[in-house]
């Protein structure tokens, strides 16, 4: 498996801790933060390929964070994560350019599969932007 860089943003401290451990165990470069604002700040200094972003967080919520992320790092793929399914925010997230929207709890291997697909998409887009005519 390709070694890509993952950012986890969720206010549930335990969830972040465990998932970061498991991702690192898979050989991925993983980082976790607990607030949308922290995530945006981290993007100033570091690059990630895929972000797992919780929709409901105190302070800056997931949708708002997504909006800022897409302004800063449009090529980073974002997978929205939520405990309580809200279809409206799902549509909104996708319209704002999220790769997917998954429900907690999601089995680790399924999440990993989603992240791999999201990363694959990022690679395709990067390859495309490198071509002189800008088309696939």
């Amino acid at each position, binding site marked *: 498996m390709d070694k890509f860089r993952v950012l986890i943003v969720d206010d549930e401290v335990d969830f972040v801790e465990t998932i970061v451990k498991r991702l690192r165990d898979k050989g991925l470069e993983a980082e976790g933060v607990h607030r949308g604002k922290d995530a945006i700040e981290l993007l100033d200094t570091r690059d990630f390929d895929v972000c797992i972003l919780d929709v409901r967080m105190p302070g800056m919520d997931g949708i708002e964070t997504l909006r800022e992320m897409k302004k800063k790092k449009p090529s980073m793929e974002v997978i929205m994560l939520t405990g309580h399914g*809200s*279809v*409206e925010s799902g*549509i909104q997230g996708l*319209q704002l*350019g*999220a790769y997917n929207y998954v429900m907690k709890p999601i089995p680790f291997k399924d999440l990993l599969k989603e992240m791999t697909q999201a990363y694959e*998409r990022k690679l395709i887009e990067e390859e495309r932007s490198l071509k002189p005519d800008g088309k*696939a």
Partner: protein
Amino acid sequence: MERPDVERTSGDHGGTKAGHVVGSNMSPWRDICPYAPSAVLTASAVPLGLTAGWGAAAAVAVMAAISIVSIHRLMQRIHSLDQQRHLLEEQIVRANKLSTVDELSAGIAHEINNPLAIMAQEAQWIHHLLTNTGLRDVKEAAECEDSAAEISLQVNRCKEIVHKLLSLARQMEPVYQCIDVNGLIDNITGLVEREAVPRNIEITKTLQPDLPLVYTDPPLLRQVILNLLMNACQAVDRDGAICVATLSEDGYARISVSDSGCGIPQDILPKIFTPFFSTKPEGKGSGLGLAICRGIIERMGGHISVSSMEGASTVFTIHLPVDNRPQELPSSH
């Protein structure tokens, strides 16, 4: 087919009769080719007037009949070509309209975003002045603040519309990934069920198990199916059923979303994919959801259609090419 008939008739009867019969046989063509009968009659009358033999008259009649038949075929061909042309014209007009809408909306959206941002800022400044300066003691201060708040609210509404317009107009090329469409549908219905189950709406799936993997843009397709399912939930409201089905069909994956909801009246059915067309109360829907869906599906080389029975059901059907990736030249790596 006309040939033996005319031949026999003209052989059995007098020349004038032959002319008459040919003439009456032609009456069905009169509508299609009004000038033909008189032309043929004139042509056959000339040799008759010269008292030529029956043979000559028969030959003329036969030739006349043949030419009428060919004219008829020609007319049919022209008619069918005309229909095809109309169809093509309609498609071109729609494609042009779509790209005009795309360009226009992108332009308008960008132009409007800046003034909107200024308005939002000014409304915030008014709010600040009203709450933090001597103005707060003026007796109309509360009313002014209400007005400022309303301005902010409406500006936000405009921003939402502009944002949706931009996503409609976004000229982005789909990123094709090979995916299991059934899996994608399972994932989305899982999400929608959380909204549907409390309202006693049952979501059933009839997914073809061996549906081929499809090269498509997963986030875009998700957006479309999620949107259709949301519409279906709204149409049903409470106590009903939604069915999602997939079927492989001649190089296409067919995805349908049907609901047992209120249905769509026939007279508005053709308009539902038009941008800004909405039956929802003012402010509740932008009228862009289905327009975006159609834009996405057509950009991926597919098409979307709808059929509905008022008061009973609505079915949205998507046809998506299994492999619509742009043709690439063999690359060196």
